[in-house]
């Protein structure tokens, strides 16, 4: 069972985000990026399937600052091969990313065949689409999104998809298929730094040149800004003790305690 995992990095929202000089995009000068959390779950799901069935897990990403750390970490966790698409801007619209991934998958020798392509169901910067469905469309493969469990048998993946209120659905998906992973069956595994360093020494990251693709033009950002707040919380200040006192008071006033 061979699996291709598509990963991308997104801005780390733990950091303060600022709008760039064009007023339409993020200021990238101090931007820190991290792997899209859902892609990390897609990687974990791929590794869990490899643990069970064997086979190869290949990573495919767009080049970005710090991407090598992401890839070596994934290799240290047990992925077999890492390929990055070079010659691309680090921040991409999802439509463009879809084209870059789709063309690269179709044209780079040795990436296909696989049984599954896994990627995160969505990312916090997915303004103009989600990755998995259009890639499935390009390949003519089956697609299911918001997936939280995958079991593989010959030519079929049995997947669980999440709805709302804790209700889920079980589906049979013929392979090869593209799945949008919401959460892996287990939390993403931890890998010690020493193992990542070892991977850096013993493994290499392959590169492929980005295919020429046209940027999508039907979705255009006119303006980006921090949310205009219609209401803001009344802030409670002081030491933990003082804060606790004030909260207690307001709970009492509202008849909650």
């Amino acid at each position, binding site marked *: 069972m061979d699996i291709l995992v598509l990963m991308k990095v997104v801005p780390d929202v733990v950091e303060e985000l600022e709008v760039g000089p064009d007023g339409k995009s993020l200021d990238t000068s101090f931007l820190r990026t991290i792997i899209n959390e859902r892609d990390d779950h897609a990687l974990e799901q791929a590794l869990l399937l490899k643990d069970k069935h064997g086979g190869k897990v290949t990573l495919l990403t767009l080049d970005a600052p710090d991407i090598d750390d992401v890839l070596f970490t994934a290799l240290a966790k047990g992925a077999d091969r890492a390929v990055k698409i070079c010659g691309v801007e680090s921040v991409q619209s999802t439509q463009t990313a879809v084209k870059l991934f789709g063309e690269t998958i179709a044209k780079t020798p040795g990436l296909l065949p696989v049984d599954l392509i896994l990627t995160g169901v969505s990312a916090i910067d997915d303004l103009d689409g*989600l990755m998995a469905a259009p890639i499935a469309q390009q390949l003519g493969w089956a697609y299911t999104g*918001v997936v939280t469990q995958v079991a593989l048998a010959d030519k079929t993946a*049995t997947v669980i998809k999440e709805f709302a209120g804790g209700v889920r659905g079980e589906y049979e998906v013929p392979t090869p298929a593209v799945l949008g992973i919401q959460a892996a069956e287990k939390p993403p595994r931890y890998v010690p730094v020493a193992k990542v360093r070892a991977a850096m020494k013993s493994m290499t990251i392959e590169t492929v040149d980005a295919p020429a693709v046209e940027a999508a033009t039907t979705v255009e950002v006119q303006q980006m800004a*921090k949310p205009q707040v219609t209401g803001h919380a009344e*802030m409670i200040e002081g030491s933990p003790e003082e804060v606790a006192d004030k909260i207690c008071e307001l709970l009492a006033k509202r008849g909650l305690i």
Partner: protein
Amino acid sequence: MAGNIWIVAEAWRGQVSEITFELLALGREVAGQAGAPLEAVLLGSNARELAQKLGAADSVLYADNAALADPVPENFATALAQLIKEKQPAAVLVPLTNLSVDVGVVLAAQLGVPFLNYCKDLKAEGGNLTATCVLYGGKMEAAVTASAKPAIIGILPGVRPVEQGRSDKAATVTDVAVTLAAPKVHFKRYLESEAGDVDITQKDFLVAVGRGIQTKDNLDLAEDLAATLGGAVCGSRPVIDQGWLGLSRQVGKSGMNVKPKLYVMLGISGAPEHVEGMKSSQCIIAVNTDAAAPIFNVAHYGVVGDALEITPALTEKIKAKKG
């Protein structure tokens, strides 16, 4: 604007989802601005009576097909694509629920147009649609024009009050036919929500923990506070994904919708997927180390501080007060 404004009605397990009415309310406004009719599209199997409930739309298209009985997004997308090619709507508004989002993205992929995501508001002006989209987990908003024909737009839950989209008017329903081949993906069955130890939707007091709680052991702090208040602990997605709390304790898009008297949030950033499940709580108190956390735009009271310090202090004070 040439073409109708469409909303894709969501029906699930025999009922029209509330978000359908939110979309009708929004669609009503957009259609007014565009000078175009508002049309709702309902796809299902033996579900025609549900179409009657969509009277807020000027007209309703109802497609009945046995293949639309189960939630197989590919079938719904294929049916919509056929209707879109025939009727040429200007815009198609799709609910951003776990159920319908796959319909939207597969539809957009089939038509080769973008899927405009995370839309929290939409207006028509000067022949164009401008959407306000929530990005980066709620830390930024973008004003976006969508000029694709049709524009497929994913609408976040909570866009308008449900009541605003309900109507006593009987809908004008037109039956339309769609042809569906066997889908690639087969729906097998529903897995019901795990019988939880507690039903968090029934609790007046909830203490919600997020990634900011940092370790499983720290959950004890939240448990103590919840016990003191006479409520229960619930959590955001990362806490559930870590296995620190069961699925039945998840609040948000994939989890439960809760409206307690008090919702205390410890280390939750306020991503839209979480907020949609708790925004109707009567009193929301958020504790977060990040003064710019989006949750402070939602909460009634906010504390910039360390939940690990504030929670035990609060528990003690409440205990003392309650005596």
